[in-house]
């Protein structure tokens, strides 16, 4: 398979066609999905026996992501202001890309930010005693680069891995050096029923007035605006809360079209108008509203995966 290039090579005419069909009411996606429909995926958890938690996900387009979570006991060094710093370390490796690639940086920052959001209380659970804590390493591997932006795939896999993560049970007293039960069956899950579930991040894009989930690479190339919306919830039954929004590079293909826009007739005008400039704030708000209801469904399906494994 050829390595994916950062800029999609699509001809101006194709872009224009793609864009106009996505802007229709109702829109037509190239793969005939509905705007909120995800591509089929396969997910499994607890696949790596030597980790505390793991998950694997295979996306319909061949993208495959493996996430492993390991924990280690580390003495707590409190900083002057009593903050818990560097308790979670997240590594993202995208096959065939340097580790300072913008994509890897973006994915890593998104996961870190949403995982450690103030309402998550994650670091509280990682504390063992006043002097020791669990240091958690989350290693995310994109084994085969997917054809589309791996943001959604990666966040869903990480969510499953964290939900399958178990910590050994503490047997010692609170002020002793920590000792643990070596019976794996007695271990406690990191995320329990009362806790906020690990976050998910959805990629959402807008073309005209239409909003699409789980976009393909071609759809990203003609988008007006692409947002990564991170959501969290206490239970799969509730409507999730927005815990972070980031903007992605969008419409790089759209800009290509601008150069040739004069040749594509009436379709070109629409492309020209959208390849530059931002989006109205109403569009942004609409994107986020819609991701809430879609997010609820996604949390529901993830719950299904977890339940099926117990």
């Amino acid at each position, binding site marked *: 398979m050829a390595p994916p290039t950062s800029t999609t090579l699509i001809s101006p005419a194709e872009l224009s066609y793609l864009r106009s069909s996505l802007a229709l009411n109702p829109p037509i996606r190239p793969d005939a999905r509905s705007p909120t429909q995800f591509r089929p995926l396969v997910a499994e958890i607890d696949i790596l026996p030597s980790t505390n938690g793991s998950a694997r996900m295979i996306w319909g387009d061949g993208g495959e992501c493996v996430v492993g979570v390991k924990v280690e006991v580390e003495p707590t060094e409190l900083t002057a202001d009593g903050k818990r710093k560097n308790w979670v370390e997240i590594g993202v490796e995208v096959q065939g890309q340097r580790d300072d690639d913008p994509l890897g940086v973006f994915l890593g*920052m998104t996961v870190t930010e949403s995982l450690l959001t*103030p309402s998550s209380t994650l*670091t509280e659970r990682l504390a063992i005693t006043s002097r020791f804590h669990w240091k958690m390493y989350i290693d995310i591997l994109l084994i085969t680069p997917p054809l589309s932006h791996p943001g959604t795939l990666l966040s869903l896999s990480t969510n499953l891995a964290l939900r399958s993560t178990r910590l050994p049970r503490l047997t010692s007293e609170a002020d002793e050096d920590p000792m643990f039960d070596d019976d794996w069956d007695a271990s406690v899950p990191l995320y329990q029923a009362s806790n906020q579930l690990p976050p998910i991040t959805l990629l959402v894009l807008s073309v005209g007035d239409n909003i699409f989930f789980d976009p393909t690479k071609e759809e990203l190339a003609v988008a007006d605006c692409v947002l990564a919306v991170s959501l969290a919830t206490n239970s799969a039954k509730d409507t999730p809360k927005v815990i972070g929004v980031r*903007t992605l590079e969008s419409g790089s293909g759209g800009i290509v079209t601008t150069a040739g826009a004069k040749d594509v007739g009436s379709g070109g005008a629409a492309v020209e108008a959208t390849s530059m400039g931002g989006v109205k704030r109403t569009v942004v708000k609409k994107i986020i509203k819609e991701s809430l209801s879609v997010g609820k469904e996604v949390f529901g399906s993830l719950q299904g995966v977890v339940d099926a494994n117990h």
Partner: protein
Amino acid sequence: MTDRRRINGPSDGTTPIVYAGVPKAKQLPPRAPDALRKIFLKTSLTPPATGSSFLELPSPAPAGTPTLKLTASVYGPRPLPPSAPFSPHARLTAELKFAPFSTPHKRRGYVRDAVERDLSVQLQNALVKSIKTAAYPKSGIDIFITVLDCEGGLDGDDDDGVEVGLMNVLAGAITCASAAVADAGIECVDLVSGGVAALVRRAPAGGDAMDVDLPAPVVVLDPSPADGGQVVSAAVVGYMAGRDEVTLLWTKGAMETADQGGDELDLLMDGAITTATAVRLVLNEAVKERLLLGIARSRLKKEGGGDVLMS
């Protein structure tokens, strides 16, 4: 790992200062939630660059309090290197770097870290939509931002709330870079200004921090990390006021949405846009000042004599 091309400190490493007791933090004069701080923005302070600008927030700063200071310089449009593949539009790159002495606590290194790369990419995304890149095929436009000083609040989020320091840096960088792009005379559809707003829960005056009923958070425009209070969530936008369009949105922290009572996301985003709109006025002035100077200069050139005779 040591960098042999730079002069390094002692090989065993050094530790930042630890104070005996808490150093007295200067208390900022209280500010109304919708009061904005004054910004100093000036263009063309780096003459070798095609365009440049310098931003300071707040200006003038109360003595002894940290400020945000950054410089932006723009080079281009200039030809892409021969090794680069054909590009039908200008390629924009943005590089943001913190100076080693710009942040509290520990000195920063010279090698770019993940935070700097992340801000660079966000800055690039915010600006590229304002520039008519199709007007400059086969060219590169490079933006360099140097953060000389910042207000702090870069430690990352924790259970006590989110940090707004990086958001302030990004908003400042967007405004400063947009001024530099305009100063370089690069064709744009509009100028982009950055604005920050946060939902802040302030401890009631004289009250106990562990009070059972916490006060409802309020939207604070242009929040400063030194303001105090617990920041529940925060948002930064890149906003083109002339077209009423958003080029960038970055939020942190949990936000309630309409069906849970109180649409905090809308409040935050509108707040950030209000800030950005006010910043835009400063941006307009800085760019206009430069334009008038340019007109005056070109008039001088026409009237003035030629150079030394070249034979």
